[in-house]
C-alpha cells in the first residue's frame, strides 16, 4: 500500500465526516472562520464554521472580505494570522517559581514539582490540535519554525508540546491574492508533502467536491471513516488545473537568484533610506509573518515578591529594545531595522538556519499600514545593485 499516493473524492458532507473523524481522535479542530471582517484561524466544529462564499481582496496595505459567487469554503488566500499563534503563542509563561519561605532563599529555578518549572509546554497545552486548511506556504512556514525551535542544539518545550502530534489538513490554493508570491519562494501553491491530508476544492457549477490526498497512515486511518470514492483521472486532472491556474496567477514575484549575496553586498544601498522614509517601524510585518520567531522574556513578580514567573512574548526587530546592549541600541535608525528584517528574512536566515525565512505568503505586504512591499524592495535593491549612496568613511 502506498498511502501517500492515494487520492479520494469527497463532498461537503464527507468533509464534515472527516472533521468529525479527526475530532473523535481527541483533536481540537482549528480552522478558518470569519471574525471582525477578516478570516482568522479559530476553533471550529464543522464545515458550517468555515468562511463559505467569502474571499479576501488584498494588496499593499489593503484587505477586504468580498462575497464570492459560489459557496467555496477555502476560496480566500491567507488572513492576518498564521498557525504560528497556535504553535508559538504570542504570550506564554515559560518558567514559574516561588521563593522558599522557610529558608528565606531565592530559588534558582530547579524544576522540582509544581512550584518550579514551565507551566506551558511539557505541562501540557491541552488537547493536540488539528489544523484545518493549512496552505502550502504555511506548511513551509511551520517547517521553518521547526528548525528554529526544534532543529538546533536546544529544544523549546512550549513549541514542542504544541507541535507534537499536530494533525495537518492542507488545502491547495484555488486562487492567489494580489500579494501572493509563494511560487517565487518555491513554497506553493500546491502542498507537495508534509501533511496528513491535503484537500483541493473542486467547484464546477453545481458540483462542490474535494479531492483528498492522503499523506500519512493516520490520514488514511481518518479517511477510512469518510464516505467518498477513489479519485479518477478527471478529478486528479481537475485538481492539478486548480493549482496550475493559481500558480499562474501569482500577484507578486520575487527574484531569489543569488539573493543572499545580493543583500549581503548592498548593506549601504540608498534604497534602505528610501524605505526608511516610509516605514513606521510598527512591527506589523513581524507580527503577521508566519516565520518571525523573535521573543523576549520578562520577569513578573507578585506584589509580595514571593512568586515570580518569566513571561515570553513575541518581539519585533523593529523595536529599539530588540538590539539593546548596555549603552544603547545597536540598530537605532529605522533604516537599519528595516534592513535587518528584510536581510534576515531573505538572506541571513539561510546562514542561520539553512533555509530562507520567507514563504511568499504576502502578509507583510497586506498588513503594512503604508503598503511596503518586500518584493518591490528586493527588486529595487537588485535594480540598484552596488549603489552605496553618499555615506563616506569619516575616518579623517
Amino acid at each position, binding site marked *: 500500500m502506498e498511502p501517500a499516493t492515494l487520492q479520494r473524492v469527497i463532498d461537503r458532507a464527507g468533509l464534515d465526516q472527516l472533521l468529525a473523524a479527526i475530532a473523535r481522535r481527541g483533536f481540537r479542530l482549528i480552522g478558518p472562520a470569519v471574525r471582525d471582517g477578516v478570516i482568522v484561524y479559530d476553533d471550529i466544529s464543522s464545515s458550517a464554521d468555515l468562511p463559505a462564499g467569502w474571499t479576501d481582496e488584498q494588496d499593499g496595505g489593503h484587505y477586504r472580505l468580498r462575497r464570492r459567487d459560489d459557496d467555496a469554503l477555502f476560496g480566500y488566500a491567507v488572513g492576518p494570522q498564521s498557525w504560528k499563534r497556535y504553535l508559538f503563542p504570542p504570550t506564554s509563561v515559560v*518558567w514559574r517559581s516561588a521563593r522558599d519561605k522557610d529558608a528565606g*532563599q*531565592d*530559588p*534558582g*529555578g*530547579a*524544576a522540582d514539582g509544581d512550584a518550579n*518549572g*514551565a507551566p506551558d509546554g*511539557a505541562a501540557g497545552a491541552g488537547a493536540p490540535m488539528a489544523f484545518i486548511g493549512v496552505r502550502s506556504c504555511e*506548511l*513551509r512556514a*511551520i*517547517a*521553518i519554525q*521547526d528548525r528554529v*525551535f526544534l532543529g*538546533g*542544539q*536546544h*529544544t*523549546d*518545550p*512550549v513549541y*514542542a*508540546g504544541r507541535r*507534537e*502530534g499536530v494533525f*495537518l489538513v492542507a488545502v491547495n490554493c484555488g486562487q492567489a491574492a494580489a500579494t501572493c508570491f509563494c511560487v517565487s519562494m*518555491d513554497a506553493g501553491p500546491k502542498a507537495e*508533502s*508534509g*501533511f496528513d491530508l491535503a484537500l483541493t476544492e473542486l467547484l464546477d457549477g453545481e458540483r462542490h467536491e474535494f479531492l483528498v490526498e492522503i499523506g*500519512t497512515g*493516520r490520514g488514511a486511518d481518518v479517511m477510512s471513516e469518510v464516505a467518498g470514492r477513489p479519485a479518477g483521472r478527471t478529478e486528479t486532472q481537475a485538481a492539478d488545473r486548480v493549482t496550475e491556474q493559481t500558480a499562474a496567477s501569482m500577484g507578486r514575484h520575487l527574484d*531569489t537568484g543569488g539573493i*543572499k549575496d545580493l543583500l*549581503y553586498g548592498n*548593506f549601504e544601498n540608498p534604497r534602505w533610506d528610501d524605505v526608511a522614509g516610509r516605514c513606521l517601524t510598527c512591527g506589523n510585518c513581524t507580527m503577521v509573518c508566519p516565520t518571525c*520567531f523573535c*521573543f523576549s*522574556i520578562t*520577569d513578573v513578580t507578585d506584589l509580595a*515578591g514571593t512568586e515570580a514567573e*518569566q513571561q515570553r512574548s513575541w518581539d519585533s526587530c523593529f523595536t529599539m529594545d*530588540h538590539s*539593546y*546592549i548596555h549603552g544603547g541600541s*545597536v*540598530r537605532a535608525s529605522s*533604516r537599519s531595522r528595516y*534592513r535587518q528584517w528584510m536581510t534576515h528574512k531573505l*538572506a*541571513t536566515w*539561510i*546562514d*542561520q538556519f*539553512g*533555509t530562507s525565512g520567507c514563504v511568499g505568503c504576502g502578509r507583510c505586504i497586506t498588513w503594512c499600514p503604508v503598503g511596503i512591499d518586500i518584493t518591490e524592495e528586493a527588486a529595487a535593491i537588485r535594480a540598484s545593485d552596488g549603489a552605496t549612496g553618499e555615506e563616506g568613511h569619516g575616518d579623517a
Partner: protein
Amino acid sequence: MHPVTEPVTEPIAGPIAGPIAGPVRAPWLDREPWRVAATRPESHDTVTLELEPPPGRAFSFRPGQFNMLYVFGIGEVPISVSGDPAADGPVRHTIRDIGAVTHALCTRQPGQEVGVRGPYGTHWPLAEAEGGDVVVVAGGVGLPPLRPALYHLLAHRDRYRRIALLYGARTPADLLFPEELACWRGRFDVEVEVIVDAASGDWRGDVGVVPELVGRVPFDPPATTAFVVGPEVMMRFTIRALTRAGLSRDQIFLSAERNMQCATAMCGHCQLGPFLVCRDGPVFCYQALAPWFARREA
C-alpha cells in the same frame, strides 16, 4: 560556525505524529540554584561572585564561554566565567554593575542564591594556538572573559612560546585583578603591559590606549594568535594595530557583544548578520566576523 551557502529548498515540513526525537527540555528548566560562596569587590563598580554549584553537580567550562545568571523576579543576563577552568569549587563570574539585573547580582551576599544555566557559546582556540605566540588584549571589563584563557596559558606554559597580556582601563582605579596583574608581571615568562586612559601623578604605569601597546611586545606575526575583548571601538582599533603588526584575520579572535536573552539560538536578539552570537559566538574568528563587524548598525 560555517555558514550554509545555498538555501535549502527541499520541503522540510512533516507531520510529527509521534514524540519529537531527542530530549525536549526547556533551556529555562536547566537553570539551577547556585549558592553565593563569596563575593569580592574588584573595583568601584565591578564584583566577582563565587558561585557554588548544587551538591553533586560537576560543572566544567571552556575559557570564553558564558553562563546565564538569574536573579529571582528581576531577570537574567549572560556573564562570562572569569575563573580558572581547571579549578574545582566555586565558579567565578565577574560582573559590572550597569543595570537592574547586574546591580542585583553585584549586591548578592554570601549564602544567597543565583539561578545558573550554562555554559554556552564558543571558546578561545587555546589548542590551536599551541606552539606559537599568544597576544591577549583586554579593554575594561573585557579582561574577565579572558582570564580563564590566561590561567590555561600559564598552566600549560610549555605549550606556547611568547605570551603577552595587553590591558587597558579607564583609570588605575578601574583596573581589575590588580594583585594577579602584579603577580603575572613578576613572572619572567609573560609580558604584561597595562595602560590607562588617564591617571593622577602617582601612577607609574602607562597612559594611552591599548592599540599602542601592540607595538611594544615582541611576537612572531606568522606564528601568533591574538585574543581580543573590550568595547567594540577598542576592538576595532586593536585589530587595526594587530593587522599592521602583520597578523592576518584568521589569527585574530574576538568576543562579540549582542543582546542575548535565551542563549539557545531561539529568541533572535543576538543576531549579528548571519550569526547568532549565543550559538556561533561569543568567540569568533575575525576572518568570519570581519564583513559584519565594521558595518554600522549591523
